[in-house]
């Protein structure tokens, strides 16, 4: 008894030891680390496919890869990045790690289900990788029918099954988060004292549990049509190909919010902490997350403006799409206002916030171009769209993820990374990203369609720029992996609260003990009470 208690007083990283203790862990923090390692591997795999795409597109002729191989490469890039990296990225790593701590709980409501979700993710990923080695899949990550269901002769069924399985891991995570938030908040932790990161996770979880089942069933129907010729999507046997697009985007548009909402939550935390100031308009930021999650479910038809959907349906989808711009603008202005009269430290998390703000602004604003129907006709299915969603999902989502990783790394690992390296990487990623994707807006308006293996020569200039930018971007990302791993080995020990931030996670040691808190915390103040915040335990450079 006393023995067990002392084990739980130790760092979660230290006790118990051994691989089995990790693979069978029920500790949300260890599961977060398992996820972090898995998604990093998939980010590297997806990134390798991206590198192949950019290498091919340096010249207008499709001379490096065959058409079939190229089509498989961009499909796998999309499938892996979206389902195996972006969707789990923040929720399953930072969310898993922080959510219980931020609300003063020992763990999530269902620790075993949490572990199960990781195993499901791994199984789904393995099945998808099996499709890769079994000849690949060439439908695009969107699996549009009837190409996917009746025409493609690649491993569509296996890949669809992989996506189907993985879907359950995010359903379970979302479900676990929601129950935890309702049932396990510490005494005094009222809804309006929750950190905004938690609000964002709540909104994200709603999308996960409401949307994911739809896409899971949809890809399963594609597999069923391939195997049994059911006549769901293929008009030759009585199906409707556009039905697939409705079902698919019903999930996949909200999925964008699974990727961006958590990043917005991270930024809310970071802006307040790095400015050491109360967040501006707490309730507006919190409710805008919910508004985005809810309105986000009603806009899927903006992907179908040229699909032969009724023009009146199109009108409704267009006006609702335009409305999503409003809560996003509200957030951006509130973050900016938080910095006003703040005490802003120029440490590496701040650099990631700048990067996020810049890229998310461009990503969000270019969404307006695509929501305006008459303009979308010209822009849809071109590189303009490719640039737009990379700005949102990678510019916004991944910048937010990396910002959060830099902010909470000391807490998660107990080690400090090199500050200068952190700043240089943030700048490399920011400039590399812009160099890669900004030219795609221009070449998109010029008319270059997406998923083109070869293209007319007048588009070459912009493609060369893009590929050059991708090299910078690749260097930036690789650098991060190197200095973060180096910090684990050689980095100085992290203090409990290096940034002088508020929030329960900063009141416990770095890294936390297995049970997070040695005694039940009682919350008495609002979130971001920086007027009474402790001083950072490390000098500001």
């Amino acid at each position, binding site marked *: 008894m006393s023995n067990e208690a002392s084990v739980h007083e130790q760092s979660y990283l230290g006790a118990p030891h051994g691989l089995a203790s990790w693979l069978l862990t029920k500790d949300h923090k260890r599961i977060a680390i398992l996820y972090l390692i898995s998604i990093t591997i998939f980010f590297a795999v997806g990134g390798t496919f991206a590198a192949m795409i950019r290498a091919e597109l340096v010249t207008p002729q499709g001379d490096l890869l065959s058409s079939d191989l190229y089509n498989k490469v961009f499909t796998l890039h999309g499938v892996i990045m979206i389902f195996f990296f972006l969707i789990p990225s923040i929720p399953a790593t930072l969310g898993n790690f922080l959510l219980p701590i931020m609300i003063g709980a020992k763990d999530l409501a269902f620790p075993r289900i949490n572990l199960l979700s990781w195993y499901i993710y791994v199984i789904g990923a393995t099945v998808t990788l099996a499709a890769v080695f079994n000849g690949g899949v060439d439908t695009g990550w969107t699996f549009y029918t009837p190409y996917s269901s009746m025409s493609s002769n690649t491993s569509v069924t296996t890949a669809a099954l992989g996506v189907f399985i993985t879907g359950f891991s995010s359903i379970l995570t979302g479900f676990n988060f929601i129950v935890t938030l309702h049932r396990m908040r510490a005494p005094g932790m009222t809804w309006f004292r929750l950190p905004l990161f938690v609000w964002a996770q709540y909104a994200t979880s709603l999308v996960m549990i409401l949307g994911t089942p739809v896409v899971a069933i949809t890809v399963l129907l594609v597999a069923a049509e391939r195997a049994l010729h059911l006549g769901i999507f293929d008009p030759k046997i009585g199906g409707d190909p556009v039905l697939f697009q409705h079902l698919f985007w019903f999930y996949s548009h909200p999925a964008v919010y699974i990727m961006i909402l958590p990043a917005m939550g991270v930024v809310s935390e970071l802006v307040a902490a790095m400015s*050491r100031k109360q967040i501006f308009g707490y309730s507006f930021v919190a409710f805008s997350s919910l508004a985005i999650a809810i309105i986000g479910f009603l806009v899927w038809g903006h992907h179908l403006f040229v699909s032969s959907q009724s023009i009146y349906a199109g009108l409704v989808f*267009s006006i609702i799409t335009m409305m999503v711009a409003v809560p996003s603008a509200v957030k951006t202005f509130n973050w900016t206002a938080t910095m006003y009269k703040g005490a802003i430290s120029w440490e590496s998390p701040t650099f990631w916030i700048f990067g996020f703000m810049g890229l998310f602004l461009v990503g969000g604003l270019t969404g307006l171009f695509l929501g305006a129907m008459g303009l979308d006709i010209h822009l849809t299915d071109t590189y303009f769209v490719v640039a737009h969603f990379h700005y949102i999902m990678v510019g916004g989502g991944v910048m937010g993820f990396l910002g959060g990783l830099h902010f909470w790394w000391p807490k998660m690992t107990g080690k400090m990374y090199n500050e200068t390296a952190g700043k240089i990487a943030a700048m490399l990623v920011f400039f590399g990203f812009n160099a890669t994707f900004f030219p795609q807006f221009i070449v998109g308006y010029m008319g270059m369609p997406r998923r083109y293996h070869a293209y007319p020569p007048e588009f070459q200039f912009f493609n060369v720029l893009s590929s050059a930018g991708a090299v910078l971007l690749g260097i930036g990302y690789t650098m991060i992996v190197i200095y973060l791993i180096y910090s684990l080995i050689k980095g100085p020990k992290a203090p409990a609260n290096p940034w002088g931030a508020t929030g329960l996670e900063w009141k416990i040691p770095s890294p936390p003990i297995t049970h997070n808190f040695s005694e039940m915390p009682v919350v008495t103040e609002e979130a971001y009470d920086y007027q009474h915040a402790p001083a950072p335990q490390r000098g500001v450079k």
Partner: protein
Amino acid sequence: MSSTLPFFPPSASTVASDVDYLYFFILGVSAFFAVLVSVLVLVFAIKYRRNKPEDIGADIHGSLSLELLWTGIPFILAMVMFVWGAQVFFTLSKPPADSMDVFVVGKQWMWKVQHPEGVREINELHVPINRPVRLTMGSEDVIHDFFIPAFRVKMDVVPGKLTTMWFTATKAGEYHIFCAEYCGTKHSGMIGTVTAMEPQDYEAWLAGGRATGSAVQNGERLFSDLSCVTCHKADSTGRGPWLGGVFGSTVTLNDGRKVVADENYLRESIMNPQSKVVQGFQPIMPTFQGMVSEENLLQLIAYVKTLKPAEPAPAPAKK
């Protein structure tokens, strides 16, 4: 390709400038907000840079009037963009009544085009300038998308139905046609050229083309070859209804529904006759799915559209 800015597509149709104006409007608004927020962030970061690690920011919690301001302004601007975008979209989806009809069939991986006079082309489309052209499009296999960047028009070509799009070219020249919906191996090879010509050049080109019978003539031939004519007779003695005047009319079905007979209705009546059965008739029409190609279908429809309503039958002489 006609010469323009190296980073902007040629603008060669009546709607192109409408689309471009909308583009520049949204671009202007976006640039304003992007610059505004970036400058504020940088100015604050410099002006309020922390001196001592333990410094804290001012005790500000928010401001309702600011929240209303930055909810209201984006909302109004977004609605302006919506209305403007919808307006352009409506123009793009309503072909003028006097449009010239051209038929397009997409298949992996080529575009087949047929002019009303019967001239056919592959991966090419010749059109006269200053005259609205309406494309009626079908697909033989998967979804494709007919995209002409210089005209700012694009429309999916969907198997199992017909879709339409229209444009009026304004500048003679050659412009790209791209397939914009991913359709398999040679998707990026499913490209072609639109040649917009002075009307007299277009007439000359048509005359020199190898016409293989006009679409209507081909349709008429198919109508008898496929023995449609045995059931659909002008004197209404066949087992099916006479088809003259059906196009554009409102048809009452045997379940009481009323539908407007557009091209998609005609298409469905031929490919899947059981799905909508005309009131007063038995569902005996065979399906022609798999027997007529997408191209033949377009010809049949072109022919059916030309049929005239039957003369009112003379009063029966029987007593």
